[in-house]
């Protein structure tokens, strides 16, 4: 499948840990504004790829090029909420505004405004002064999402963010992510183990498998752009999942 205007380019990317080559000569292009899910078995290199794009790992070889509109506008949502237990919800959300050299220059009022905005986006504005231990798993994940949004990113990387949540909360979070993505016009790369989650959320699925994170499937999904609850049980969605599941097993 060829992209007309590939904006995020990964060229011949390799990453080794000691003698083990996790990613080998990996190339990919992702269109700005799209929602792409990376799926594949454990250890296939999905998370490493995401961390390389975020700059959390040093690449062994290759190039990752982001368009100027996305540079310095990358946020990352971790597998668990990764909140600092000694900080309140608002202080956790405001952390990027304290740490990032550019964002730290914002006025105190602007920072407070942004924190409140981010908390409102995830419907946690009434929990600003709560500590992480006072929140449920789903709420913690929403705080984590708000922390990623407070920097007003254009490019969001999510590493299995909903894996530890119960099904209802997971569905709720998925819908919230879709609505935020639409509202904020985000480019999203989403790593998940769940085929169902990947198909429901994304426009494009990339399946990695085997040594060196080989792409075994890369395709756009033929599903309505507006995802509704009824889609979850639709035959069309289930057919796609069955097909992907077979590819994963083969």
């Amino acid at each position, binding site marked *: 499948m060829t992209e007309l205007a590939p904006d995020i380019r990964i060229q011949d990317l390799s990453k080794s840990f000691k003698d083990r080559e996790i990613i080998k000569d990996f190339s990919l292009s992702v269109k700005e504004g799209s929602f792409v899910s990376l799926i594949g078995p454990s250890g296939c290199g999905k998370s490493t790829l995401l*961390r390389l794009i975020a*700059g959390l790992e040093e690449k062994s070889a290759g190039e990752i090029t982001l368009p100027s509109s996305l540079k310095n506008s990358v946020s*990352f949502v*971790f597998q668990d909420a990764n909140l*600092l237990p*000694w900080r309140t919800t608002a202080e956790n959300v405001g*952390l990027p505004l304290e740490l990032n050299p550019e964002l730290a220059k914002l006025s105190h009022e602007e920072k407070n405004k942004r924190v409140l905005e981010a908390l409102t986006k995830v419907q946690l504005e009434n929990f600003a002064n709560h500590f992480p231990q006072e929140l449920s798993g789903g709420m913690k994940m929403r705080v984590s999402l708000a922390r990623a949004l407070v920097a007003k990113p254009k490019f969001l990387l999510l590493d299995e963010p909903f894996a530890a949540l119960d099904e209802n909360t997971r569905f709720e979070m998925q819908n919230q992510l879709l609505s935020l993505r639409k509202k904020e016009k985000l480019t999203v790369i989403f790593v998940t183990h769940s085929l169902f989650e990947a198909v429901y959320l994304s426009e494009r699925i990339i399946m990695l498998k085997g040594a060196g994170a080989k792409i075994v499937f890369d395709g756009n999904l033929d599903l309505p752009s507006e995802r509704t609850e009824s889609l979850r049980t639709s035959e069309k969605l289930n057919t796609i999942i069955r097909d992907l599941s077979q590819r994963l097993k083969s």
Partner: protein
Amino acid sequence: MKRTWPALISFAALLIVFEFLVRKEVFSASLIPAPSMVLMTMQELSDDFVQAFKETFSNVLAGWVLSLALGTGVAFVFSLSDLLKRAILPFAVFFQTVPIIAIAPLLVIYFGFGAPTVIASSFIVSVFPVIANTLMGLESASEQQKDLFRLYQANSLQILTKLKLPCAYPYILSGLKISAGLSIVGAIAGEFVAGGGLGALIDSARTQQRVDIVFAALLLLSLMGLFFMALLSLINSIIQKQRPF
């Protein structure tokens, strides 16, 4: 206050039982004195006890504060350099494992009789838990937490003050609790050889077979330990309220 009641009640019950057993001559008063006798001795020798308590208290405080300052400082330096940690940490372990009573005579030779030797002895015994706990705390931040700070391009100072220090705080506190007790042990060992304070009082009572004086001194040392624990508890509650991190 509610939380201290069980301890106070059990302590009072213990005193009553001992008083009863000694009066009924189940225990010999020359081996275990009745609590009332200990209190009487404290009253009789109050000037000596006050003077000795003051001396020991100031020496313990000096040794403990020195442990806190140098111990945390050394741990911070160790946390910055793995090479330094591997080169110097064994010496700290050496201080921890060699019995202070074996080093104390050397300290007298180096520092002379009196406070300097006692402070050094208190410091040597109490510094290791501060170093070990602070170091463990500074290294306790998870990889994901470090990733978070890396992601937002935090500088070294921000990583130290906003991540490593808050992570280390509970460890430092627990190190200080351990070292508070040990600094008293070290000071008493120092006073056995260098003189002064409750240590010297205990040593002189030993030569006179005055167990009542020894028990009175032990009671005061326990109260000193409790004071340090209460002080730490107070500092902790202030820090929890102020939340400087």
